[in-house]
């Protein structure tokens, strides 16, 4: 019984960690999404000339 509880706790912890990572790094992920989206929309966006 206790073993089962421990497992459930661990699974819960794992899912919280993923959400936590996404939340804590959200500015970073937002930046990556912005760069990818605009690079697809415009070829000159992610070039050294534009840097």
């Amino acid at each position, binding site marked *: 019984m206790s073993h089962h509880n421990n497992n459930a706790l661990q699974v819960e912890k794992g899912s919280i960690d993923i959400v936590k990572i996404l*939340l804590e790094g959200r500015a970073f992920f937002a930046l990556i999404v912005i760069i990818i989206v605009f690079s697809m929309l*415009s070829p000159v966006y992610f070039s050294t000339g534009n840097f």
Partner: protein
Amino acid sequence: MSSHVAVFGLLGIGMLFVILTGGIDLSVGSTLALCGVFAGMLLEGVEIEALDLAFFPSVWVVVVLTCLLGGLVGAINGVLVAYFKVPAFVATLGMLYVARGAALLLTDGLTFNSLSGDPALGNTGFEWLGFNKLFGIPVGVLILFCAAVICMLALSRTPFGRWIYSTGGNARAAELSGVPVNRVKLSVYIISGVCAAMAGIVLASQLTSAGPTAGTTYELTAIAAVVIGGASLMGGRGTVRNTLLGAFVIGFLADGLVIIGVSAYWQMVFTGSVIVFAVMLNNVQYSAKRKSSQQAEKTAEIKREGSRASAT
């Protein structure tokens, strides 16, 4: 694109210090304009009619004097907030008008255009700050990263940094445990002013013109960069690294929208939505943290009870 970010980043770092102590600095946009105009005025030469003299200070003197002016403006804000107990919002709102007015008075509403200097007078090289690249990176961005590294070390490695965080967390408790709260508040506004002055110099150098209307609404962009970086407006929470990321998000988003040709009106709508979404996520994060800490307490309690039960 990245030199655009440099201005927002410098303003954002200064703003972060103020927001960490639980205050807010609405005057950075006007301070930026005032300092830019002041630098332009110095580069065009200062004449003292009574002594029949004219000064043409070289660029590094101009930079130092301009940063001092920014620090002075910040110090006025800081004294008002820390010692006269004027609410930060009101004191810096007043300074927003005063500094903008002073910038307009300095130039009579005109713009200084000839900032390149004269080789005979030895004050050339101002546009180097905004235009040139070192190792392929614009100088403005290098200035931003130097400022960021210094501020990062100050916040995480020095007692001063811990004082700032504790002042923002609970000013009364910090004061009772020996933190010089008033001095900390004064110094964060000075730091914000100096950062705004550096941003003003970089902007004036990029445009090779110093206008008194530059940087209108930049204070709000700076606040947005800090908030997107996950800092709390209540104070005590936030880092330089995330603020820089916030500045990059705002700058890259704005420039990307320009490049793909979205109308200026839609740009405002997008930027506003991003800011609101970021603040919403902040709340989710804080409540998740509180919940997880409560949960940890509960499990610890259960364990303690369990061990007690097994002992008996």
